[in-house]
């Protein structure tokens, strides 16, 4: 089965992202596919390059990154949610004249809500984490 996930929670303050990651790994191990993870609302913080958890705690961005590299899952960060919360890619950083962006590119991509509609179209199941 082909799944897509919607993640609404920020790492470090909500269980949603961690549950989504565990679900994704379990589904992949069982032979299913994860077409896209769509980071929306506070979930956009999962893509921050600046996430720095204390020693002994997992860095979820690294985990998403390796999942994407290994299985070709698209890691899509909603651009409207992201800009509102200070998550910016290099292109937007240039547009707004910031010193730098902080999105972990190219593992995560800043894209529009159209990608959520696309995920619904392409996937057998769409699962929301964080509500």
């Amino acid at each position, binding site marked *: 089965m082909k799944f897509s996930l*919607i993640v*609404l929670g920020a790492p470090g303050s909500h269980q949603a992202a961690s549950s989504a990651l565990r679900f994704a790994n379990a589904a992949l191990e069982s032979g299913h596919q994860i077409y896209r993870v769509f980071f*929306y*609302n*506070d979930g956009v913080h999962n893509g921050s390059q600046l996430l720095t958890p204390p020693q002994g705690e997992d860095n979820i961005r690294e985990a998403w990154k390796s999942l994407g590299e290994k299985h070709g899952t698209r890691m899509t960060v909603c651009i*409207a*949610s992201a800009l*509102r919360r200070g998550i910016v890619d290099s292109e937007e950083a240039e547009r707004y004249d910031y010193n730098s962006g902080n999105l972990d590119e190219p593992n995560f991509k800043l894209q*529009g*809500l*159209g990608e*959520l*509609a696309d995920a*619904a*179209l392409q996937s057998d*199941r*769409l699962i*929301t984490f964080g*509500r």
Partner: protein
Amino acid sequence: MADNSLLFILRTAPYGSCLAREGLEAALAAASLGQSVSVLFMDDGVFQLVNDQQPAHIGQKNNSAMAAALPMYDIEQRYVDEHSLNNRKLSAENIDRGFTVLNSDAVQKLMAGHRHIVSF
């Protein structure tokens, strides 16, 4: 069941968090991209539709104005969960017009009739 029907369930009260607004934005975006979209307001989400909201006092945009835009995006299927209204001492008179009130059986049928459900 439409081939790619999407039911957006809006379950959070407006203003306290951004989820009410971003949930509506997601529904409007999907509809504007030609998806078959329905919306259901339930749980604390019914507060999004309470009439005479005046969020300018707290520097916010009016959430119910955004909900009122749903028909303009061709979202014809707009529902409110009756049980959620009753639990909050609200009724159809307290909410904006243009939404059909559904009992629990009808809500179940609505959910079963969509390919995807997205909950905010």
